[in-house]
């Protein structure tokens, strides 16, 4: 594949097997692309978990009558938190793509409040990482959403910076 730096959106690529520092990664990623646009923030991490935040914003609302956030930004937040939890457990960065992600919205998010997503990688296998997460707006015992998903571990080649609109199969986030 003939990759050109131009197609990277001006961002440096991440070498596979690079040591993973969630706080550094968080600060960098949250300034760029979709994560930067919706205003995702790094909050904390542990051996197998990551916590991210998403402040409420008027232009991310899904129902103007109530001011409740759209579910799209909440999925994005859970996608990133679960994805980063795999790297936290691995202790290093490795390219992966989302195979599937399921989210149960147990109640509407409170308008005006920041959404916090806590996610963990509960099983890491050779080719699959199994993750789950919770989104809440202040009290983790009173969640807004639950998530469960699987990430496929892939080769670095073709993971980022494509040159043709014909991407590798099974490639999500």
């Amino acid at each position, binding site marked *: 594949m003939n990759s050109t730096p131009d*197609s*990277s*959106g001006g*961002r440096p*690529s991440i070498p596979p097997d690079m040591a993973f520092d969630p706080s550094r990664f968080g600060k960098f990623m949250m300034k*760029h*692309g*979709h*994560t930067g*646009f919706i205003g995702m923030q790094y909050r904390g991490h542990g051996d197998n978990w990551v916590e991210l935040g998403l402040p409420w914003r*008027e*232009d*991310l*609302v*899904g*129902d*103007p009558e109530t001011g409740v*956030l*759209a*579910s*799209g*930004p909440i*999925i*994005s*937040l*859970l*996608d*990133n938190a679960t994805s980063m939890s795999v790297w936290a457990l691995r202790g290093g960065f490795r*390219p992966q*793509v*989302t*195979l*599937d*992600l*399921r*989210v*149960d*919205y147990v109640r*509407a998010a409170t308008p005006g409040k920041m959404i916090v997503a806590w996610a963990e990688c509960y099983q890491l296998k050779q080719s699959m990482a199994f993750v789950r997460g919770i989104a809440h707006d202040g009290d983790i015992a009173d969640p807004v959403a639950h998530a469960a998903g699987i990430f496929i571990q892939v080769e670095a080649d073709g*993971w*980022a*910076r*494509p040159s043709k*609109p014909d*991407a*590798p*199969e*099974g*490639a*999500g*986030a």
Partner: protein
Amino acid sequence: MTLVSDRLPPYARAMGMRIEGLLDGSPLLVMDFSDRAMGRPGFLHGGAIAGMLEIAAIMALHAELGEEDARVRIKPVNISVEYLRGGVTVETFARGQVIRAGRRIANVRAEAWQADREKPLASCWMNFLLKPKT
């Protein structure tokens, strides 16, 4: 009756989504590529794809409900997204299909694709709770 495109929420507008008529009876959602939707370099963010699927599902449901739409509030209950291909830096399309809209529950599926509709990026099912507006 309000146009379905008037129902696009602030989130969808902020992401640059728009409705371009109907495709096989459901609203066709279109999003130009922008940095706002970028995940890993050169690819759409999985959350942006899921967000688009959700909006396509919601718009399909608004269209399906017709006159009833003004009287109910649509609450997403859950979604399951399967990712099939990486989304690249081109225009993306999505279309929802209402499988069943009952009195309280609606079951909707949606698909997103780019250059070739036969090669979807992702698909999802979603369940919605329909509640009378008070």
